[in-house]
């Protein structure tokens, strides 16, 4: 769980925000506050799918799941668990 969060944080701060002086924290509402735009959301999904080897179906791409890095990590954790159980 901790490492999922750390990986997401690194991706957001380096790949999405690098160079802007912006540094997102785990509980910042990065989509609501506009730090991450729609292209950023698409890149985040791509990162999740390649880095954690899970599928992120379109209906899961909601504000609730993507509110902050903490909620994204919780969502990913649940996806990985359900994949392991199936």
């Amino acid at each position: 769980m901790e490492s999922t969060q750390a990986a997401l944080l690194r991706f957001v701060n380096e790949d999405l925000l690098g160079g802007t002086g912006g540094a997102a924290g785990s509980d910042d509402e990065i989509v609501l506050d506009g730090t991450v735009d729609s292209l950023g959301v698409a890149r985040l999904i791509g990162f999740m799918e390649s880095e954690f080897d899970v599928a992120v179906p379109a209906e899961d791409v909601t504000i609730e799941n993507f509110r902050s890095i903490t909620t994204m990590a919780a969502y990913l954790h649940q996806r990985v668990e359900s994949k392991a159980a199936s």
Partner: protein
Amino acid sequence: MPPHVYLLPQLVERAAETRPDGDALRCRGQALTYSQLYERASALANGLVESGMQPGDRVGILLNKGLESAVALYGIMLAGGVYVPLDPFAPSARTEFVIRDCGIRRLVAGPRTTPALEALARAGVEIETVFGLADHESLPFPLVGWDAIGALPPVPPTVATTELDLCYILYTSGSTGTPKGIMHTHRSALAWAEVSAAAYDLGPADVISNYAPLHFDLSTLDYFAGAKAGATTTIIPEEITKFPASLASLLADERLTVFYTVPMALIQLAQPGILDEHDLDALRLVLFGGEPMPLKHLRRIMERIPHAEFVNVYGPTEVNGCTHHRIDAIPAEDDEPLPIGHPYPNVEALVVDERSEPVPDGEPGELLIRTPTMMRGYWARQDLNEGAFYERTPFGGLPEVFHRTGDLVRTGADGALRFLGRKDRQIKSRGYRVELDEVEAVLLSHPAVHEAAVYAMPDAEGSLEIRAEAIPVSGDVDSAELVGHLRRSLPSYAVPAAVRLRESFPRTSSGKIDRLAMQADSVEAPAAVRG
């Protein structure tokens, strides 16, 4: 007979008389009736005039999408001012440029945009008054909060504005490296509200989406055709537009009847599982524009909302909407691009060759548009204004003025226009208008960049993705540094994911950078290059 409407805010004044308790706007579960909107906008106008604002002054709107946006834009116009939407998510350097370029001295802002205001203060931008905020110790600007504005008379001040005066300036990407301001008058904006409200039979029962932010010209139909019709406009918060599943819920819950958006939003909504659980029975009309819509995606979304009419709307910000194509049936399997259709009534379209002579039907040429919805010109850019218009002089010796769209089109056998591409290097990426030359100019301004090339490649969603390559002066710069440099000046939608560093560029025989060869090369080596 009701009094004639000459100015945009008079649309709201009329609606406040005919349906005072009808909702003008809704956002995040809150609403403003037409009478509330008119009163609050009038109070703001009084505040602006009290602060010393003169007719024709530009006033910036630095707000996240919300009900205050509507109060701000009508309030500014009721005071005789020109509203200039500032993208709250743009880099500070870009906002600062726009403020200095058109001489903005007053802003309407909100609690969520105080970080942007702090950045402007640090950059030494002088603002005489910020409306919509009170008691913010971190800000060196005089502030007037909504409580104080609410205590002002709810009747607008008397100002001498004519329909020929400016009402807004929308800034868009400029090829020389800085944005350019497209100026519209009350007449040109009202003409578009009239044409579009009539074309789509908008009425008081309609609930129209506002998908686009204020600085994107799709918003003018949502606001002004909506007010013309006395309809309700539902403002879709920025974050919802990024999440198709959340957007689908909003479309259903708000019982929208008209949805005006960009192709990307429809492509995302058509993904499996997104619309399945939602009741979109109220949705009668889907308008989309901003860039070409791939037919295979159009087919999928039309199958999912079979009862709604779909219309492809075309028109650069310079002329508002000028042509449209009503889609009668789900297109068959052929993948010829969707037409941009026929001119609206009150629009003359010419297709011309390089000598500005009309071409025979079916031949490609540049599209020229003559319409009352046309802009006044680009703010303080005589260089651009000289090339933006074409004057035809057959009639009584007086020129008839057309806008040169820069779009290449041809007329099909059915008489409908087809979009073929651009004369220049302007592209649309996810609905946003980007000049590739602007991105290239900013990349080249980095001291470690010797040469730069920026081009577009098709992406997985049927839009275009921006790619960049650079030859460094020396070896000690990386992609992340250059991407960061671009992010400090350009809006996020104009910034490529990476800058590919190379020792040399492919060249044409005359020594020019061969961007076509780069594109071909890029197909084989996708953007897996991360800095």
